């Protein structure tokens, strides 16, 4: 049983989604919620178990159908991918619990779609094959298209149409890139590609470079890197907040694909193509941070503000990918976990605030005061402190680690000022947002008697997501050790190749 563990984070959500579509779950909301929550907890538990197992035993390669690599498709569960799978399952569990408080009834098929999305994201993290990565991208995309339309209005349709068309173009570019790489390298297994890319010579080098950079376009589109980021703020702001919270993991899939492809395949052992994407990634990442910070300052409502915060975090993550060293990668992983959780919490918080403020919603203008100012206010200030990177929360640790990781590189001259000024801009923008939302009232409290308190389930989810931030600090020792281990494992390219090509069961 234990050797099949790596496939379970993919199989379980798939099974759950299918069960949820069948009659007993399809008819009754209660049964549907129960099954969905139980299975989400099971997926999370299995992910944690896999995480612990991988941490103890090293890379686990699962050959699907027992066709060993490079001929068959393999799932590669290493420390990096299992970490992200666990994060996805946790976020999925949060979205399902939050949705069960009422959002799931506003449209059809919420629970199956969330499980399909988890299936796609987990698959994209676990797969060791580039074409399989494409397939899982499509799985998560089609689930996200439908989720984006969940309980939608006209604004949703417009945003969804643009998002879908953009991503379909992205998929075509992905396939062209894969075609070129397959034509040149004769394989699509990531480890095998890493091995063969250094043996290229002559014109093939340029073809492989073209293919690799086409993939960069796709990953930049999924990850919302600068020239291709325009879809993100509108899409995230028009989606239902609980869906947007779940989408916080989707940009990370693009970041993960970049990390995997440009560290393992086109990394330091790639011969003529060594660190191929680095100059592109570096410049675009810095520009993304700046544009994201401007977006945060200019945002008119809390959801757009959070969407732009996602942009800033993507820029930071990609800048760390461009550095291509172990310490930067470890800092990246820590920051990735922290930023995903806190931006999800902020999206959910925006939902509660906008419900309680009535007509003005989450727009940053003076309006009705919220019904539960203390609860939501405390949650908001914790989230804000975490995002900005103030002590004692996880944002601070992440920030120090990032600054330390970039200290010795020559790029620090550019990165430090941009990153620190951005943090200050975020501090200003979030202070302004918090002040307006919680302290500037137009009317008296008595008027919002018709407004109901937030559902306890929703509050629990938000507090749970926010509680991860202090936990990331309290258990900072073991967690940062794990991140370092994962980074070392990722950068140990020959070790990874050996594990995949020779260790397949």
């Amino acid at each position, binding site marked *: 049983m234990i050797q099949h563990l790596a496939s379970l984070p993919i199989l379980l959500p798939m099974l759950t989604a299918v069960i949820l579509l069948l009659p007993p779950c399809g008819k009754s909301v209660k049964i549907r919620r129960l099954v969905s929550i139980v299975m989400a907890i099971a997926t999370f538990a299995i992910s944690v178990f896999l995480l612990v197992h991988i941490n103890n035993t090293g890379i686990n390669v699962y050959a699907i159908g027992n066709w060993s690599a490079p001929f068959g498709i393999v799932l590669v569960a290493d420390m990096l991918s299992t970490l992200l799978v666990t994060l996805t399952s946790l976020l999925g569990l949060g979205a399902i619990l939050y949705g069960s408080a009422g959002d799931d009834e506003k449209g059809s098929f919420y629970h199956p779609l969330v499980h399909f999305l988890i299936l796609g994201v987990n698959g994209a993290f676990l797969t060791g094959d580039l074409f399989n990565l494409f397939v899982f991208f499509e799985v998560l995309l089609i689930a996200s298209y439908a989720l984006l*339309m969940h309980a939608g209005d006209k604004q949703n*349709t417009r945003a969804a149409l643009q998002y*879908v*068309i953009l991503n379909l173009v992205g998929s075509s570019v992905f*396939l062209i890139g894969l075609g070129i790489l*397959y*034509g040149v390298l004769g394989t699509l297994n990531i480890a095998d590609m890493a091995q063969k890319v250094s043996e290229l010579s002559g014109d093939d080098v340029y073809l492989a470079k073209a293919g690799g950079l086409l993939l960069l376009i796709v990953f930049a589109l999924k990850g919302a890197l600068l020239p291709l980021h325009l879809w993100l703020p509108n899409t995230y702001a028009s989606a239902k907040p609980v869906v947007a919270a779940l989408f916080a993991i989707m940009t990370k899939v693009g970041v993960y694909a970049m990390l995997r492809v440009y560290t393992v395949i086109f990394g330091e052992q790639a011969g003529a193509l060594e660190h191929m994407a680095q100059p592109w990634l570096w410049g675009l990442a810095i520009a993304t941070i700046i544009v994201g910070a401007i977006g945060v300052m200019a945002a008119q409502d809390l959801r757009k503000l959070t969407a732009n915060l996602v942009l800033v975090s993507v820029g930071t993550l990609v800048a760390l990918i461009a550095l291509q060293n172990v310490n930067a990668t470890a800092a990246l992983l820590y920051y990735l976990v922290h930023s995903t959780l806190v931006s999800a919490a902020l999206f959910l918080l925006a939902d509660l605030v906008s419900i309680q403020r009535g007509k003005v919603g989450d727009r940053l203008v003076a309006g009705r005061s919220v019904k539960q100012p203390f609860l939501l206010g405390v949650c908001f200030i914790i989230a804000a402190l975490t995002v900005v990177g103030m002590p004692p929360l996880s944002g601070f640790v992440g920030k120090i680690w990032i600054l330390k990781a970039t200290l010795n590189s020559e790029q620090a001259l550019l990165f430090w000022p941009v990153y620190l000024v951005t943090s200050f801009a975020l501090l200003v923008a979030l202070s302004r947002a918090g002040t307006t939302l919680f302290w500037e009232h137009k009317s008296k409290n008595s008027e919002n008697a018709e407004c109901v308190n937030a559902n306890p389930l929703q509050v629990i989810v938000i507090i749970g997501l926010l509680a991860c931030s202090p936990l990331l600090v309290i258990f900072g020792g073991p967690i940062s050790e794990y991140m370092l281990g994962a980074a070392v494992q990722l950068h140990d390219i020959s070790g990874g190749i050996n594990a995949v090509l020779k260790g397949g069961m």
Partner: protein
Amino acid sequence: MELLYASCVGVLVSCGVFLLLRARTFPVVLGLTMISYAVNLFLFSAGRLTINKAVVLGTGTEYADPLPQALVLTAIVIGFAMTAFVVILAIRGRADLGSDHVDGYVPNTSADNKEQK
């Protein structure tokens, strides 16, 4: 054969990109379809263009690369589903937004009005 094949892919892609840049959803969907045809042809050529080679292992000394064919098959299925979805979404957009423009607004230029007539 290579020249013919490559120009076929090229023409399909350029037509697709041209249609993709139109303002209305129907040409955009057609453009997406054309690009996906071109992509399928391109993927197929990744296994090199050969004639008269055995498809099944063991029936000849040289054989055609089977993997691109599997890739194309997968890409066709996925492309088909995605096209169906985008068509439905375009119809929904036409109903919801009152126009078939991709960005949901009808630009008020005289040239556009003439085109509509």
